[in-house]
């Protein structure tokens, strides 16, 4: 029972991380219309930003988190405007390859700048304090991750549901042609969505960094995990991404606890493949989407 509860806690921490990653990825796919295979690398870079702000510059923890989000968002927006927006009208596999190239580029430039060695961040000791909830130890850090994620996703939801530009993002994801005739600035909305999505990467990195080392090649693993979650949730569905993040987070944690930690990733994939065989478009996806293969 103890093991079970503590694995649930681990699962929720993992799920929070996945939700931030996959929520951003789904936003890019839904609003911008790009399959972004460099998504995890933005998290990796954000990790280094956080390291610079927090460890190197000794900024206060919360300040470092906010600065990381801002820096990653600015960086993401710049990359989008320079390179990625040219991919919008292209086929999904061309987008996948180009962003894979971007990912390789980031990975190796990061290696040049920060060396291939893993860096870890020691969080303030107050965060490492363990609290006993019932019979299980939960660190303040765990709570921070889960609560920080919930606050962030709720405020994002508010923005998307209530504000003018948030509504415009939904509009772009639902009907691009209609946006053009109503005069919505589709290019700007896409830039906004990409920037928000990379800000989420920044938060994900800053929250999770103390639990996970950062090194240049870690991005690809983040990307594939984010894709597993987004595909399971249904491409482009933020709601689906959050639900799928919880499913995959819990499955990974429970599998690691009860079956084998060596195969953790495999269980996530297995769950994704099994669910896809029943719901080929994912849990909240649009099943009317056309089947397509690479055609050059």
């Amino acid at each position, binding site marked *: 029972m103890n093991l079970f509860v503590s694995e649930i806690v681990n699962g929720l921490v993992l799920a929070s991380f996945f939700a931030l990653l996959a929520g951003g990825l789904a936003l890019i796919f839904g609003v911008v219309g790009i*399959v972004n295979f460099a998504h995890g690398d933005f998290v990796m870079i954000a990790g280094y930003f956080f390291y610079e702000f927090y460890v190197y510059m000794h900024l206060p923890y919360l300040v470092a988190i906010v600065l990381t989000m801002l820096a990653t968002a600015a960086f993401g927006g710049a990359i989008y405007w320079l*390179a990625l927006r*040219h*991919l919008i009208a*292209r086929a*999904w*596999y*061309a987008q*996948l*390859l*180009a*962003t*894979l*190239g*971007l*990912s*390789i*580029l*980031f*990975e*190796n*430039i990061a*290696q*040049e700048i920060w060396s291939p060695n893993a860096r870890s961040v020691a969080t303030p000791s107050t965060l490492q304090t363990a609290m006993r909830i019932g019979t299980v130890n939960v660190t303040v850090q765990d709570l921070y991750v889960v609560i920080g994620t919930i606050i962030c996703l709720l405020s994002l939801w508010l923005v998307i549901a209530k504000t003018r530009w948030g509504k415009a993002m939904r509009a772009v994801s639902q009907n691009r042609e209609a946006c053009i005739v109503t005069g919505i600035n589709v290019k700007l909305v896409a830039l906004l969505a990409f920037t928000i999505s990379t800000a989420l990467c920044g938060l994900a990195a800053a929250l999770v960094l103390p639990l996970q080392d950062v090194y240049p090649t870690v991005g*690809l693993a983040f990307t*594939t995990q984010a*894709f*597993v979650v987004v*595909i399971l949730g249904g*491409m482009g569905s933020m709601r689906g991404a959050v639900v799928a993040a919880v499913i995959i987070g819990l499955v990974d944690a429970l599998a690691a606890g009860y079956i*084998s930690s*060596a*195969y953790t*990733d*495999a269980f996530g*994939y*297995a769950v*994704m*493949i099994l669910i*896809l*065989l029943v719901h*080929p478009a*994912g849990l909240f996806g649009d099943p009317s989407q056309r*089947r*397509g*293969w*690479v*055609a*050059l």
Partner: protein
Amino acid sequence: MTERPAHADSLPPNERRPLAARVGAGVWGRPIVPVVVIGVAVVLPLVVKSGFTLGIFTDSLVYVVLALSYDLSVGRVGALSLAHPAFFGTGAYAAAIVFERYALPLALQVLIAVGAAVVLAFLIGIPAFRLAHLTFGMATLGFALIAELIAQNEIGLTNGPLCIAGLSSLSSRPLGSLGIDQNGQQYYIFLVIAVAVAAFVWVLVRSRIGRAYIAIREDEPMAMSVGINPKRYRMSAFVIGAALAGLLGAFYAHYLSVVCPTNLDISYTVNLLVILFLGGTGGFWGIIAAAFVFTAIPEELQVAPNIRLIAYGAALLLGVTLLPQGFEGAAKNVRRRLTRRARARRA
């Protein structure tokens, strides 16, 4: 309903198509290019004395085979699988395991390696082909990752991260008696494999099967309406590609004399995607050229691995953004534009 027909420009007929493209003409077409290429490849070891450089060319040949077999699935039928290294690695492991445990001869090892790769291809393909586009890619990636985890963790079978070592290396007595050293012998063995696989792919894609591949890739509804079963052909391209990769894996195991979980690694996929998409998916010479360019040149220049990868990444990003059809497509476009201009000048 759109009022726009799909395509309405009309170009003057191009009568100077290579013979091989015509139905009923010889399969081999103009023999000059392959003869020259094979000729150069055969005399190479006589010129290149450095074992290091020869090793690089051997590696390039390995990539030629991997890329051509991978392209059957990606370029020919348009199924962007991300699991190709799993077949290569499975072939290598299958050969290594039966060699280590039962000391079977090489021919049997190769057969078993191919068999193992084919079985795995069906295991992956049957569920994965029920999905489409990106989901298909991610599902195959998932299987590839699971295969790598098995290689890492099933220590009883694979020795895990300690690898299976001590495989006999490849050599050929007849070549040895000609005074060709170990490096040269291995080079020639892979040259034979590469030529054989390239010839196989060349014949396959020009057979009726290959035409069916093009048909389902270019237009699945049209292909179905002339009686082609797309699922069957797509699966066949996937499985044939896996078989070729498995075959290569068996030889590769003996070439390195050690098989490790990294032989199944996704980093192969990244290299292969660079080769395929910059060489031109669904092509032939473009892919072969790209396999050499992207393997031999960085090795020969001894570029630091991450500088090389920076170049790869930039090439992939810029290449896909700027050259939608790869080198071969770009070359074709230039050629077409030149002939059109020449024609205009004549007129």
